[in-house]
């Protein structure tokens, strides 16, 4: 799967709704060149950009008490918006 741009894959993963740490973990598993903390943060930043562009919607949030991702920070659950679906369908999502 690791042959398409990261943001394409993020949109794909969010089709059914996912937490940001799950997305980051999944991407880091799939893309061998994106290991380490720097890339972890930059993948998370990609998610934030997608959300601010209106393609992902933040449907749930909780404080990261146990430090699953970053202790004390917010965790977000994202789902693809209608606009995101349209944008994704001409880029990457074949099945919507």
């Amino acid at each position: 799967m690791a042959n398409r741009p990261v943001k394409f894959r993020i949109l794909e993963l969010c089709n059914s709704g996912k937490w940001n740490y799950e997305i980051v973990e999944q991407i880091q598993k799939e893309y061998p060149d994106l290991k380490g903390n720097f890339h972890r943060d930059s993948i998370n930043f990609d998610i934030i950009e997608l959300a601010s562009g209106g393609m992902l919607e933040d449907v749930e949030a909780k404080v990261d008490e146990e430090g699953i991702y970053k202790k004390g920070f917010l965790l977000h659950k994202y789902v693809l918006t209608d606009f995101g679906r349209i944008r994704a369908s001409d880029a990457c999502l074949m099945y919507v």
Partner: protein
Amino acid sequence: MDLQSLKKQEHQRRIKYGFMWAFFCAVLWGLWYLPGTAVWVLNPFDQMYGEVAASNGDGVALVIVAVLITAFNAATVILALGVWNGVLGKFGEMKRTLKEFHPCSKWFFLASIFGGPMAILGSFIAMGFVGGAFAAVAALMYPVVGAVLASKWYGEKVTKRAFIGIIVIILGGITIFGGGVLSEIGSGNVLWIGYLGGLMAATGWGIEGAIAGKGLDIAEPDVGLTLRFIGEGVIWWIIAIPLLAIIGFPMIKYALLAFEPLTMLVLVFAGITFGFCYVAWYKSFPLIGVGRGQGIGNLYGLFAVIFIFLFFGDVPSWTILVGGFLCLAGSTIMFSEDTGEMESLRGD
């Protein structure tokens, strides 16, 4: 702290980053005017200007030299961005993005046509046939084009407040360069091609931003930007320069002469400032939108005048105070907007 206020804080942080990037863009863009101005008096460009002017006149000489300078500028920008992406470990992502020509990278190549040959060349044409102040003012109009396009084309939210901010910053820019424009236009017969150049600059950068915004939806800014400059490099080095050389301009001869230490140093400095001004520009778009990013980016006019004063000692006229105040007011109008309006940048 409860969830709601944490969310709000996180959101405000995003907006702050966006404005910070746009502000960096303005500072670096202003700084770029130092090497951008200095390079003209260095050889081989100075010599080239003389040779072309002798046979084709000053206006044509300016445009032809501008093509070569812009081509070198694009080349050094690609170099700077190559180092940047290398350090960030983004070559893998670049390859992946490049391959997605239809949905993604085509937008960046299109952006390079509008930002490169159209805006930069237009700006030099305006400079050559009307004057520097006119070119600067014309270019300041680009955020209006960018904001209107982004909102009409893909529904970017441009709030009334953001739009007022953009307009006030533009008025500030006009005040800074205004006197110069009047004397340039009043100085007699200006060729229509000069005004066309101004129009090219205003629309070119605006269209570039809107198109880039479209591509940036689904791409990394650092990577998208590098592709945009590779596109521009191809346009200048593979299309424009060989074409002009065939027509008979001494492009190749002077391109080979450019490898002098001082000229190269100035060109590299231009590449670094221009490259990172663009990095900051493209990074701000997904965070605060094309309209706001370009509006704040427009502060470059003020910074350019200040840096040129500091480094070259060209004392600006008193109107810079009024203009600078307007720029400040316009930015404050934008910075102080309630960030709740910017939860998502898209929508009605």
